[in-house]
C-alpha cells in the first residue's frame, strides 16, 4: 500500500481533519496516512477523529521545516470501514 501524505499546514480547524477524512475515504484498511498540520486544534482533533472513526493514531511528532517553521506530523493507520452513520 502506498503511503499517503496530507499537507494541511496553514489550514485552520476543521480543514486539516476534513482533508484527512477525505484521504481516508475509500482507503484500504492498513493504509498509512501522514498529516502535516500547523493548526493548534489539530493536536486535539486528529486524535479525537481517529478515536471516533476507529483509526489508529500511530505517532505524533513535532517537526521543523527547512525554513525554520514548525508543524506537527501525525501518522494514522486506516482501520476497518466504519458502518455508515447516517
Amino acid at each position, binding site marked *: 500500500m502506498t503511503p499517503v501524505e496530507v499537507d494541511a499546514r496553514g489550514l*485552520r*480547524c*476543521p*480543514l486539516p*481533519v*476534513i482533508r484527512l*477524512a*477525505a484521504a481516508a*475515504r475509500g482507503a484500504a484498511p492498513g493504509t498509512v496516512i501522514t498529516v502535516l498540520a500547523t*493548526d*493548534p*486544534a489539530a*493536536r*486535539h*482533533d486528529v*486524535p*479525537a*477523529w481517529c*478515536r*471516533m472513526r476507529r483509526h489508529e493514531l500511530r505517532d505524533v511528532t513535532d517537526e521543523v521545516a527547512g525554513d525554520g517553521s514548525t508543524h506537527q506530523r501525525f501518522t494514522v493507520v486506516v482501520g476497518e470501514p466504519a458502518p455508515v*452513520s*447516517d
Partner: protein
Amino acid sequence: MPTQGAHLPVLTYFQRRKPYSSVASAPVSGWGYRRRVSPTSATPGPRALLDAAGTPLLPAARDTLLAALDAGWADPRRLHAEGRQARALLDRAREVVAAGLGVRPPELSFVPSGPVALRAGCEGLMHAGRRRGKRLVASAVEHSAVLTLGRHLAAASGDPSLFEEVRVDALGRVDLDALESALARPGTTAAAVQSANGEVGTRQPLAAVDERTRARGVPLLVDAMASLGREPVPTSYDVLVGDARSWGGPGGVGVLVVPERTRWRRAGPVSELEGGRTDAEPVVALALAAAEAWQQTEATRAAEHARAASLVARIRAAAAAIPDTEVVGDPRDRLPHVVTFSCLYVDGEALVTELDRRGFAVASGSACTSSTLEPSHVLAAMGVLTHGNVRVTLPLEGVAPDREADVERFLAVLPDAVATVRAQLGAAGL
C-alpha cells in the same frame, strides 16, 4: 473633533433597542429576556438566549439595583447619615449572601468579579502558606484565571514543578489518583478544584477531593462560579469563590469566602476594604442587586433545577442524533443547565454565526471562536473533538421566561444548521 459642550448619550437610541437591554424596550409585563426584534441580526425575528455567560438581571434584582442606585450612592465609610445608609445597604447585602452560602458575614468579601476572587483566593492561600512551599495544584479544567496564575507563578520562579495541572478523564472529572500524587509532592501549598465545570457541566467529586487535601494538610479553593444558584452550595472547602451572574445577579460582583479557620493572607499592601481581602471598593447597588437575585433564585431552585435538567436532556438527545456529533461531559453527574457537543467536519465559528443568523445566541469552545486560536482548554484536557463545538448554557427561567419554547425552536433548526455549515466546507458524506 469633539465640539465643546456637545456630547452623545452613553446609551444611544439604537443600543437601547437591542433585545438584551431592558432599559428602554421592556414591555410593561416584565423585564426579562422577551421576544423582540433584534436590530442587528440578519434575520428579523425572535431571539433566543442560550448562553448564560451574561444574561439580563432577574426582574426583582433589576428593581433593587435601580432603587439602590438612588439610595446607596454614598461612601459607606463616611460617618454622616448618607454614608451610614449606604453602609447599612452593603451590610444587608452581605448578610443575605453570607446566609445563603452558609457562612458568617465577615467571612464573605465582595470583589469585582469571580475571576478576580479566584486569583485573590489562590494568592492569599499561597502567601499564608509560603513557609511550606510555593507550589499550586489545580485540575486541568479549572477556570483560566487559576491556570494562568499557576503558569505565571511557575514561569516567574523558573521552576515548572511549582504548578501542576491534574489530568481529567474523558468526561472532565478530575483523576483522584493523580490528584493524590500531586498533593503528595513536597512543597504543595494550595489546591484549586471547581464544584462543576461551566463549559461541559461535569461535577467534580468535591467530598473526595476535600478528603485528600485535608489528609495532606493542603488548603482547598473551590470555584463554584458555575454551580451557585443552580446547585446546593459546596460545603467542603477552605476558600469558596462565586460570581453573582450565575444566580441571576449583575456583573461586577464576585464573592470570596474565607472562613475564619482558613489560613489566608493577602499578598500586597494592607487594605481596609472587605475584611482586607481586596482593594476595590464594592458598588453598593450591585451588591444589593446580587443579594436580591440570590433570594429569588434560591427560592425557586428546586423547580428551576428540574426544568432545566429536563430541557438539557432533550438537547443532549437531539444533538446525539445528529450524524457524527459527540455530546461531551458526564451524562448524569452534571449541572442542570449546561450542555456541550462537537460536530465533526464543522467550523465552530461558522456554526455559531449560522445559529446567530437564525436567532439563537450560543457559545463555542472551538479554536476559531477564541481570540488566541487555541481551542477550549477544557475540551482539550478531556481529549474530545474541539472543532464544531456548541455550548448551550440555559439562562434561569426568571430571566428567560420563553426558555422552553426557545429550546424547542433551537432543536428544530439545529440539524439543518449543522448540515448547512458542513456543506459549505464540502464535508458532506465524509
